[in-house]
Structures are given as C-alpha cells and as structure tokens.
C-alpha cells in the first residue's frame, strides 16, 4: 500500500479511498512507512453545482457535510479564497459552552455541544474535545445578578450551570487571586462543567474530510468576486477560477460576509472587527477550567500541549486587517496578572488576529434573505466556533427542505427590520 498519491508531475494520480483512521492503522503505517492518503481531494471546479457554499471555515464545511450526509445533496462546492480553515476557524481560542442568556440561545448552543461530544466518532477524526469546565467570573453585583439569571435560564433548559462563590473558585483554580484586596475582587462565578476547549483545526479538517467522503467538492484559493442575481433569484457566482452556475448560494464568510451579501445586494447589520489572541510558552498542566472575566476583558485556558491561550475583547474600531497591536498585549498582560499574579514570568510566544462579524444584538444571523436562493449563516462575531455543528445541521436542513428549522427561527435577518432582537450581550461580549 505504498502507492504514491501524486503522479510525478505533481497532479493527482487518482483518489485512494479514504482511510479509516484507527490505532491499528496508525501502527501499520508507522511500521511500513506507507503514505497517508490526502484527507480531501483537490480538483477543478465544475461549471455548475446544486449548491455553492462560500467560505471554507467550520460553518461552510459543516453545512456542506450535513447537506450530503443528512439530505443526500452531494452536488455541492465549498469555495474559499484562501486555504481551508484560514479564517476565524483557524484563529479562534476554541472555547465551547452553552451557558448563554436567552432560551433561544441556550437551546441552540446546547445542541452544538451535544454534536461536538459525538463528533470524533461521527467524523472518524479526533477533535480533542476537552470538557474541562468553564468559569465566568463576576466582579460586581450587576455581574452576579446576570450570572444568577443565566444559571436559572440554563437549568430550565437542562444545562449544567450554577453560581459558585470565591472559596469554590479557589478550589478549582488555586493560584487565582480571590482575595478582597484586588482592584476588582471576585464575588463569584458562573460554573459550567460541560464547557471546555477543542482542537479547532481538527474540527475543520474533520468536516472537510467528511464532506469529501460524500463527494462534496472543496475548492481552496477560489475567490468569489460576484454573485449573479436576476429577478430576485440567484443564478450563479463568479470566481477567479471562472463562473459557476447555481441556484443556491450559502454565505458562510464570517468577517467578510458583508462583502459577499453586498454582491447579492443584501444589506447587513454587521461591522467587521478584529479580535486578537495570544499564546505563551509551554508549561506543565496547572490550569484546569477555562477562566473568563468580562470585567477585566480577558480569558485564559491551558491547551493539551501546555501553552496558555489568552483572549480579550474585539479591537476598538472596525477593520479588515489581521495585524496584532502592542496596545492589546499590554492591556492583556496587566489583566492576566491581576487574576493570576504568579504568571508574571511566563513568556508570550505569539499574538494574532482574526475577523469577527459583529451584530447589534450579539446573536448570529441565519436563514433566508430577500434574494431567493441566497442564504446566510453569518454574524458569528467572537463566539461562533462553538456553533459550527448545529449551524451546519440547521442550514443544511433549510437549504434542502426550504423550511427554516425551529432551532434557528429566532435568528433570521428579518428580525432587524421588525425589531425583534435577541439580546445576548450579557453572555457573549467577552466570554467567547
């Protein structure tokens, strides 16, 4: 089985059926040095598809995967202007949780956590979902009240979520400064045991591989430059690799979604803001749960490799630039040390930014648009990675059946014109 995947001139010599990853397979290939088949194929775009998904992040790939798997719609292309997973899906801090504020939000994110819990088995790809618990700190009475409110809404929806006091927090994170002498003393926290972190790239690659196994076409470096709309209907997209005829387009481009919707003539209630993150050198495991502080605008988790991953709030003005700033790192370091003074000797390795499509109500926008055949799954802001599976599942159902699934009905675009906002700021502003 040492067949080469590429012919000598570098083009594909033929597709080897996807390997089923297993411990035995790993062992066998380790011994024989056999090459792994590529996880998904590269090919030339066809001139038409039943469905074109724009954006090769977790949302676009999950939508394509569930279209093929749950609805048998396999004539699907996923287009990305860059490499697969190069958008926010490859830049986020990978926090997964469902302890939101509104019942609509809680139900929706809970479905996603359930899908994530089973995703490694479903995709035959280890996504390393680590449900290590999630703590949102409260530093003032207002925050404590919101935490209690969230805990009650969560419990009503069957989510494991409770408010705990400083002593219990100290138990979970012994080196956190829970004393009363800090600038913003910690009064309590919302504790959400099923929350955690995941290997975000693996999720993207797993969905791409899963979609490919169902014969979905995945086209990186294929930039959509225009969308053809006639008489209020989608007819196709124009790309740097030629035109593609289609009657159904799904916009899954997060930070770039205003530009794509603009091509179809659909106005969006979205501002694109960079969000930065940073990572330290590796140290022995010492931090178990994810810790978030809205007041201090900071959150921290430790990866399986031992690095500490830090994040904060979005940059203070709109931009399509993904450059980091010194100001961000300075603010971040100060706030981290207020929480955990013992980290002062840790060295930062890198910082980076991704683009976030922020909506006025901190909730996503999913569903139909005034243009027939043009669907959107956007407005994911700083919190949308955790929603990849459930959004993909729901968007696939919408595209396949033409009916908006109940679980996303509240998140339609029309809510802005009709004044039915879904206020999630209390649960989404910093705590991704």
């Amino acid at each position: 089985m040492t067949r080469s995947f590429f012919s000598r001139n570098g083009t594909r010599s033929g597709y080897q059926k996807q390997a089923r990853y297993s411990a035995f397979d790993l062992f066998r290939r380790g011994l024989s040095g056999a090459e792994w088949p590529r996880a998904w194929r590269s090919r030339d775009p066809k001139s038409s598809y039943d469905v074109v998904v724009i954006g090769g992040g977790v949302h676009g790939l999950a939508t394509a995967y569930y279209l093929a798997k749950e609805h048998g719609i396999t004539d699907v292309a996923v287009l990305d202007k860059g490499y697969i997973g190069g958008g926010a899906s490859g830049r986020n801090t990978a926090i997964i949780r469902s302890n939101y504020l509104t019942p609509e939000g809680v139900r929706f994110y809970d479905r996603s956590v359930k899908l994530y819990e089973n995703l490694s088995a479903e995709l035959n790809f280890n996504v390393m979902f680590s449900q290590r618990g999630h703590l949102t700190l409260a530093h003032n009475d207002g925050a404590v009240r919101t935490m209690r409110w969230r805990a009650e809404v969560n419990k009503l929806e069957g989510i494991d979520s409770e408010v705990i006091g400083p002593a219990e927090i100290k138990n979970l994170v012994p080196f956190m400064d829970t004393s009363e002498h800090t600038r913003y003393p910690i009064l309590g926290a919302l504790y959400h045991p099923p929350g955690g972190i995941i290997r975000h790239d693996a999720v993207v690659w797993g969905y791409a591989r899963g979609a490919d196994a169902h014969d979905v076409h995945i086209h990186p470096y294929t930039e959509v430059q225009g969308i053809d709309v006639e008489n209020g209907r989608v007819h196709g997209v124009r790309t740097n690799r030629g035109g593609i005829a289609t009657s159904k387009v799904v916009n899954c481009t997060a930070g770039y979604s205003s530009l794509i919707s603009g091509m179809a003539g659909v106005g969006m209630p979205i501002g694109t803001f960079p969000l930065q993150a940073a990572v330290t050198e590796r140290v022995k495991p010492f931090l178990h749960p994810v810790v978030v502080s809205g007041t201090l605008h900071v959150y921290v988790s430790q990866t399986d490799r031992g690095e500490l991953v830090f994040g904060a709030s979005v940059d203070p003005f709109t931009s399509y630039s993904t450059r980091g700033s010194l100001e961000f790192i300075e603010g971040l370091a100060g706030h981290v040390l207020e929480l955990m003074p013992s980290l002062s000797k840790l060295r930062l390795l890198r910082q980076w930014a991704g683009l976030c499509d922020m909506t006025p109500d901190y909730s996503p926008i999913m569903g139909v648009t005034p243009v027939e055949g043009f669907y959107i799954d956007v407005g994911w802001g700083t919190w949308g990675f955790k929603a990849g599976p459930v959004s993909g599942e729901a968007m696939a159902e919408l595209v396949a059946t033409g009916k908006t699934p109940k679980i996303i009905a509240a998140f339609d675009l029309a809510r802005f014109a009709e004044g039915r906002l879904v206020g999630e700021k209390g649960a989404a502003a910093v705590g991704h």
Partner: protein
Amino acid sequence: MILLPCPHCGPRNASEFRYAGEASTRPDPNATTPEEWRAYLYIKNNPAGWTTEKWFHRTGCRRYFTAERHTVTNEVRETRLPAARLESNS
C-alpha cells in the same frame, strides 16, 4: 493604526480616541417608517476599503470629527470637522 490626526489637536496616539461608527445621515424621525429607522440604526456599509466615519477625541479636545480611513490598511487620508460643525462655525 498608531497615530490619528485630530483636526483640532494634531496627531495623537490612536488610543486617545473612540471610534464612533460609520458616518451616516439621520433620517427625520417624524417622517420615517419604523423599518427605515431600524435600517438606519442597524445596516452598515462595512466596506473593505475607504470609508468615512466618526471619531471622538476622548482624552483630548473631546470633540467629534470625521475621518477617511482605509479599513484594510488602516491608513487615514483625511480628518476634518463634521459638515454641520463647519456650517455653524462660519
């Protein structure tokens, strides 16, 4: 963006300012439908390129001004007083 030139104070560190959103014209509240009003509130151009926007010099003159900024490079090519302010001053 590191420096932003305030039309009153000259170039200052960008952290002195607060971004106040895209410049847009406020419709007459008495002559608009709720839908038009909400479109004014929520819908953004959000271009990848040159845009006209409002900034507030928070820790300086504490005045609003208009800036033309490129949202991909964050280059600022012009800052000026808002048109309304120019008229009332003249």
